[in-house]
């Protein structure tokens, strides 16, 4: 199936993995696919979503918030304080150099994920989104899958965190769908 993905859609899948890694998540879900799409300004989906006031930063924050309880290995600020270490001061310096959330990515060196970029598995819903994006492209008689088809896949799938985040940002999914279809021509 992947050979039919255009570079924008391919890069979105790669970006989804990067986002999942950055969020320290163990699976790539629909929300990471959406983040992957939004990571590229040149994407059709980024442009269309921008008109709805939705961008990468906003979705990232919403996803981080929605999945906050998921991380099992947060740094123990209280324990560090007992030996005189101010975690917030360390976090501030590290984030100044490496960006927000840099300290919160748990290393998984033995599995090689953090550096090797080994594949983070897709959730059932994320796989469904990819299937649906293929179906959308076929239905529109487009020869390959672009990032716009992927966004349609996300909207069609409807139940994943990506769709919920969009709804939470007051996006009318039906209207968005029409917009994307129009742009795809």
């Amino acid at each position, binding site marked *: 199936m992947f050979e039919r993905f255009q570079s924008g859609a391919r890069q979105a899948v790669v970006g989804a993995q990067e986002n999942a890694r950055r969020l320290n998540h163990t699976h790539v879900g629909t929300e990471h696919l959406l983040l992957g799409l939004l990571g590229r300004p040149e994407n059709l989906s980024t442009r269309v979503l921008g008109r709805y006031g939705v961008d990468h930063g906003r979705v990232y924050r919403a996803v981080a918030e929605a999945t906050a309880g998921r991380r099992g290995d947060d*740094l123990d600020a209280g*324990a560090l304080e*007992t030996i*005189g270490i101010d975690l917030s001061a360390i976090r501030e310096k590290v984030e100044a150099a490496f960006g927000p959330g840099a300290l919160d990515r748990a290393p998984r*060196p033995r599995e*090689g994920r953090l*550096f*090797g970029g080994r594949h983070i598995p897709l959730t059932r819903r994320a796989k469904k989104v990819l299937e649906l994006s293929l179906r959308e492209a076929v239905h529109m008689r487009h020869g390959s899958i672009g990032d716009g088809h992927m966004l349609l896949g996300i909207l069609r799938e409807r139940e994943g965190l990506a769709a919920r985040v969009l709804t939470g940002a007051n996006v009318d999914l039906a209207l968005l769908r029409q917009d994307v279809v129009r742009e795809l021509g």
Partner: protein
Amino acid sequence: MSDTAQLASDAGSRDPAVGLRAVRALRMLVDRLEALQVENARERGWSWQEIASCLEVTRQAVHKKYAGGRGLLRRER
């Protein structure tokens, strides 16, 4: 006495539960920092040997710990 100093002196109460938890937290923090710095060094083109020298460990140790599979993302970088 500040809160932090108070907590630090609590650690001096020799309660193993407090002390061990602090050690564990510190180790996790060090792991995070090390991973971040190694990743950064690799992105800047440092060799495993150079990184190992700075960390005062063997090249094999650092390579084994951090050199993952040859993934998609690595080639992208």
